């Protein structure tokens, strides 16, 4: 028997690590991966709670998260490619022309 609360705790930690990734890394791909990790953490929490409540709608939600993530990754990677395919470095800080 897996302690559901602990699983959610794990999800929270993964979520935090993902957040750090987004804020700290400068490589857009890694940032994007970190964001995906946050989504994954949320999916994990949903599944854990679904188990806790004996309610499958949480799992449906998790499934939808996975599906959406797929679509989002498709678009995201396309954007990253268009932005970076001519650039020297994968550095998100270089993309800061608009400010103030």
């Amino acid at each position, binding site marked *: 028997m897996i302690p559901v609360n602990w699983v959610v705790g794990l999800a929270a930690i993964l979520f935090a690590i993902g957040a750090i990734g987004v*804020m*700290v890394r400068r490589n857009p791909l890694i940032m994007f991966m970190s964001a995906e990790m946050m989504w994954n953490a949320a999916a994990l929490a949903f599944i854990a709670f679904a188990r806790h409540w004996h309610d499958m709608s949480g799992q449906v939600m998790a499934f939808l998260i996975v599906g959406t993530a797929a679509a989002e990754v498709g678009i995201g990677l396309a954007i990253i490619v268009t932005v970076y395919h001519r650039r020297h470095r994968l550095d998100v*800080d270089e993309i*800061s022309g608009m*400010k*103030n």
Partner: protein
Amino acid sequence: MQLLTEIILLPLIGAVTITVFKGLMPKKLPGIWASSLVGISFLLSIAADVHLTHLGVHHRFVTGTLWTWISGFGPAIGARLYLDPLAGIWLLVITGIGMLIHIYSIGYMHDDPGKARYFSYLNFFIFSMLLLVLAGNLIVLLIGWALVGLASYFLIGFWYHRPSAVRAAKKAFVMNTVGDVGILLGLALLYLHYHTVGYPHLFRILSAAHPGSAFFEWTAFLLYVGAMAKSAQFPLHMWLADAMEGPTPVSALIHAATMVTAGVYLMARLYPLLRLAPNVHYLVGAIGAFTAIFAASIAIFQRDIKRVLAYSTLSQLGYMFLAIGVGGFAAGVFHFMTHAFFKALLFLAAGSVIHALGGEQDINHMGGLFKKMPWTMAAFLAGTLAISGIPPFSGYYSKEAILGQVFNSGHTLLWGVGVLTAGMTAFYMFRLFFITFLGAPRDQALYDHAHEAPRVMTIPVVILAVLAVVGGFFRGWLNRWLAPTFALYPGASHAGLESGPLFGTILTVGLAMIAIILAYWMYVKKGVAPNAGSAHGLGRQAFEAWNLDTVWAWLAVIPFKTLGDWIRPVENGILAFVNGVASVVWLWAADLRPLQTGYVRRYALSIMVGLGALLAFYLIRA
């Protein structure tokens, strides 16, 4: 009532028509038109006074409301007119002398390009003065009061291209406004307490009141401030001498005969109120006496023919107020009447001289004119004798009446001042007369050009001379005429004309005679220069009117201007505050802008910060 309306409106019609149609009128028409309108007004005034005599003694007034002037905050105030014997005297003097001066002006202003404008102003003045005198309540009186001030402003500044005239006009206007607002506040107080400012009603209420409360003192004082400003009592007197910048007939009419006596009128009118305010009542007399001797002291040293007359006017006004101050209302009115005659006469005669000398007013350039202008000289002499109080000229009677009453009332000090002033008056008037008409010509070129005035100018002068000579004989008639007015006021024991002790008369007349002889000795025999004594020392101070202009400037003008300058930084501060708020907002915005760094990771961090803050917020609240 209708008669009163017509009397008032005729001059107004004149003023309006001349203003509007002056472009269309032939050159001579405005003068004739204006004079004839005032003449008709004069005839109507006589009719109105005659009408008064048919009324019962205890009901001798005509009054009525033309329309409701204002209502809504208490009992309505009407546009009221009121004629009683007191006003009747003024009515006659205003229209009568006004008419003469109009006629005189036709000659005097013959060559002036602005004469149409002049006559419209003059007519406007007559209208305003009539409104003042015939007012049936204090509000209408105040309107007339201010309008005569305005007319005086117009006429003083008639030659508006002269800076001195402009300055004098401004001074007159502002000082008169001081008087206006005094009356305004006084009448507001009266209305507050009695819910009326209409005449017979107000008199009745005041007559029933008991003297001594501070309210009466204040009200009376405020109204007296109005009279003070208009009648140029010390310390609000400086405008009058400067007012001589206007054409001379104007000085005769406004600044000698009529307008400046409005204060006397007001004080006489408010006799019941003064009775209730003994302190102010005494103040009126004291200031009157002081003004009289003060002005006389200045007049002795003046070199300008009109200025001498102006200060003598001041001095005589002081006499009138002195009379009122001791309760001699009838005496005051009497002196007003005779003064109107002889002072108008003096001014017009002086005007003839000035006219003859091509505008020269400095007596240093005059002398020996009696040969060239006999009529004028005779008239001037009559006036001078009258003002000096030599019997049997009119001035003697009125001055005697005043001094007698002062003596009888027990104000010995004031009486002494009055007597002394009488002597001084005789001195400076004869100084003026001797220097102007006798002796050798001081300026040959001017003298050669001098000529007797045209008939249109001499005739009014002669008529006035006759009046100045015989005016004193109206004494008994006046006493009877005014009795019903003062009979309306209770406790009017001293109102009628009285005569003083014989030694007083002898003293006064004797002093005057000595003064005349002294003047003759000095200016004819010894040929002392007119400006001798005014070069330095006390004489210079007196010549400069004791420098009260400077005092006033230091007391009022400069503080006000300085305050204005002090306020300027405050204003700049307020404006800067508004702009400052704007720039602070702008700076704030500029300070916030760099937070938008353009780095996407910073944006993410900002979201995280928000998240953390929200979580903390709930954690703390939970």
